[in-house]
């Protein structure tokens, strides 16, 4: 176990954990933010997606000892929990069904839009690889276009 410092959503934390503890579980269990989800543990599903220095990272495969940079989780995407353009677009299209994958979808979409402000459908196919078992994919796609200013609300 080691005392590890990290910044999450702008707040400094010191956690006492083994360095190989995945960032996902540090976020969920040591810091107590449960918006980031466990879906597979092997970076296949994307439910654990967070931003590290603005880039989308699957936190289940990021050992805390190797973390370099500030972390933003779904709770920190916007101050009021609803005003990020992606969140607004998601609400306009009523995207979520069960919602369990949506934290990861939103974080992945936010990172995509930061890097590619007007993504094409191919861009979306290539980068939005998060799994959604409820099949909200068509609405996720439409909402990304709306958030980018490309689509119809």
């Amino acid at each position, binding site marked *: 176990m080691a005392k590890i410092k990290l910044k999450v959503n702008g707040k400094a934390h010191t956690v006492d954990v083994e360095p190989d503890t995945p960032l996902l579980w540090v976020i969920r269990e040591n810091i*107590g933010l*449960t918006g980031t989800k466990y879906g597979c543990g092997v970076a296949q599903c994307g439910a654990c997606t967070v931003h590290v220095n603005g880039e989308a990272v699957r936190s289940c495969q990021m050992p805390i000892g190797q973390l370099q940079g500030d972390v933003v989780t779904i*709770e920190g995407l916007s101050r009021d*929990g609803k005003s990020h353009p992606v969140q607004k677009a998601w609400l306009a299209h009523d995207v979520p069904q069960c919602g369990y994958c949506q934290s990861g979808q939103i974080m992945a979409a936010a990172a995509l839009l930061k890097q590619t402000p007007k993504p094409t459908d191919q861009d979306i196919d290539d980068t939005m690889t998060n799994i959604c078992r409820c*099949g909200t994919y068509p609405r996720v796609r439409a909402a990304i276009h709306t958030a980018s200013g490309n689509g119809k609300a």
Partner: protein
Amino acid sequence: MTKLKLDRRRFLGSAAAVGGGFALGWTVPGTLEAFAQKQVGDAGSEVGIWVVIHPDDTTVVRIARSEMGQGTLTGLAQLVADELDADWSKVRTEFVAPEENLAKKRAWGDMSTGGSRGIRTSVDYVRKGGAAARMMLVAAAAQQWRVPAGECVAADSVITHATSGRKLRYGQVAAAAAKLETPKDVPLKDPKDWKIIGKGVKRLDTAEKLNGSLVYAIDVKLPGMLNAAIAQCPVFGGTVKSFDAAKIKAMPGVHSVVPVGENAVAVVADTWWHAKTALDKLPITWDEGEHATVSDATIAEFVKSGLDGPQAALGQQQGDVDAALAGAAKTVEAVYGTPFLNHATMEPMNCTAKVDGDKCEIWVATQNGDAALAAAAEAIKIKPENVKVHKTLLGSGFGRRGMTDYVRQAVVIAKQVPGKPVKMIWSREEDMQHGFYRPITQCQLKGGLDADGKLVALHARLAGQSILASVAPSRMDNGVDKLAFQGWLADELGYMAVPNLRIDMGVRNTHVPVGFWRGVNHNQNAVYMECFIDELAHAAGKDPLEFRRAIMTKNPKHLAVLNAVAEKAGWGTPLPEGVHRGICQNGGFGSYCAAVAEVSVDAKGKLKVHRIVAGIDCGYAVNPEQVARQMEGSFAFGLGASYFGRNTVKDGRIVEANFDTYEVARMADVPKIEAHVLASGGFWGGVGEPTIAVCTPAVLNAYFAATGKRLRTLPLSQHGVV
């Protein structure tokens, strides 16, 4: 020892903190108290058992069923709110606690949520609940005004006295209304007067899903809570011989190591990561039991033997199919097969339980609150009256969360850690390898055509596993699992005009546990039937739509949807070069569905689905927008399964451990979907499942049109086409 930092504000994720949308009725506690359901009557008045109205007109509708993304929560609220004549913007919801339902002799009815029944089996009594509440509110206002109730009109949570123009809000008369007797005779609105039912209103439960504040069962946090990771014997039916707790007791955070029934062991620790890490190092010796040599090959042979065994359970028959086949101008025969499939819900199985002596409390994602309560009681032999159940929203269910194995396990673990809440989470690997799989089946179909190319004889013989035999044998009909024939019995089959028909099954039950996978047996039955009908159509030299029309003369509702979808898809009109169409229809869960798929196959033989045009006639659609979403979603689920989905068996165990080997549909796999809600009114049909059955056969039939090749086994990945 790691200290858990509990963020008190995030403790329960009340919608009040987030704004907009919907409250599950959980208040943010002033103290670090358990996850508590809102106390009824804090400020609101119960006007009948379905509705609680607050002084500010906030209207809480009570929901007995479960919400797993299918939108039933919002739909049920719409049903009540419309008859109640409530202002929709003031409507919130709260779950009925199963122990409340028990205490009031199931006054809120059936809590089970499956079989696409959540709306259609609730409509009568929940609407009456809303209507009765409205009558009581109006009566209370009328009493206050000393006027006849008949002179008062209710709309949007306001009661108006027609002649004087006086108004009272629901919130102003709720307390008085609550004291009145619930009326016995409760007329309901004519559908043409609905204002909320039938409208694509926004879901009530979206806002909390956009910012991580919704607490799923896996997110539950309680004071003093421990976490448990569990390992079950990899071979179904095997047991734990021994485990060496001493080897891991000193690992970080480990609290204890406990047996869970005969076939599992759990490590309890301060965090789940510590529990899982220690569990992975725990030496366990399994007694794998007698099924340790079962493999795909032995299963396939066993199942195949059901195709021509002399004993077969009969689904239905008419005419004399053997004679008709013998005398047919042309016969066609084919054998199809589909594999085991895991539900792979997004949220892995989990449950939190606390046992104090003969009392038990659980926090759980379940499709059936009553069953979870009963299971918890039965698992540790306490009275059902001593169990409390906190229901969460589900990170998908698909039928998996109607099973209570994980509930029983959590309670058994908690009993060994008395007085402390224990959250048990299954790893994804555990979840993938200990499911209740869609059953493996094969099907032999024989069809006979007359000289005009019309289908006059059809024999479909299924072989494979019965779900009811595994899960609910008391629901079998004289030992016959009628569910195995979903889509093919007289009340669902769209081809009852075929004069000679036999549907039967050689049941072959393997040791692999099976259960209800979204769509249940319609999934493979529709593939078998609709692809074979296509084979017959081509053998007869007929257009697949025309061929179907000729034998659907006794099934007008099936035919109407098929025709409507064919028209919307432009069946028969020219297509771009290389693009081909396939068509399919299926009746199930009270509804009628059809689909047309447009595909192309490239030079390397790879399939690309361009577009699926689909329709459902569910009678009344409480929320057409949500119905369309469920259709879209069902295609991702069903098509993904057909492309990639397969659980294989080796050495008696399931091979696939995670999404890398059990692939599912992702964004890039899903084609353009045009979902048409063709609600013809007059009845209530299910929505969550019926459409899943029609996408795969349409695609397979289109593939044939493109290549002349029949794919008769799934998944498609084994044929190299995806």
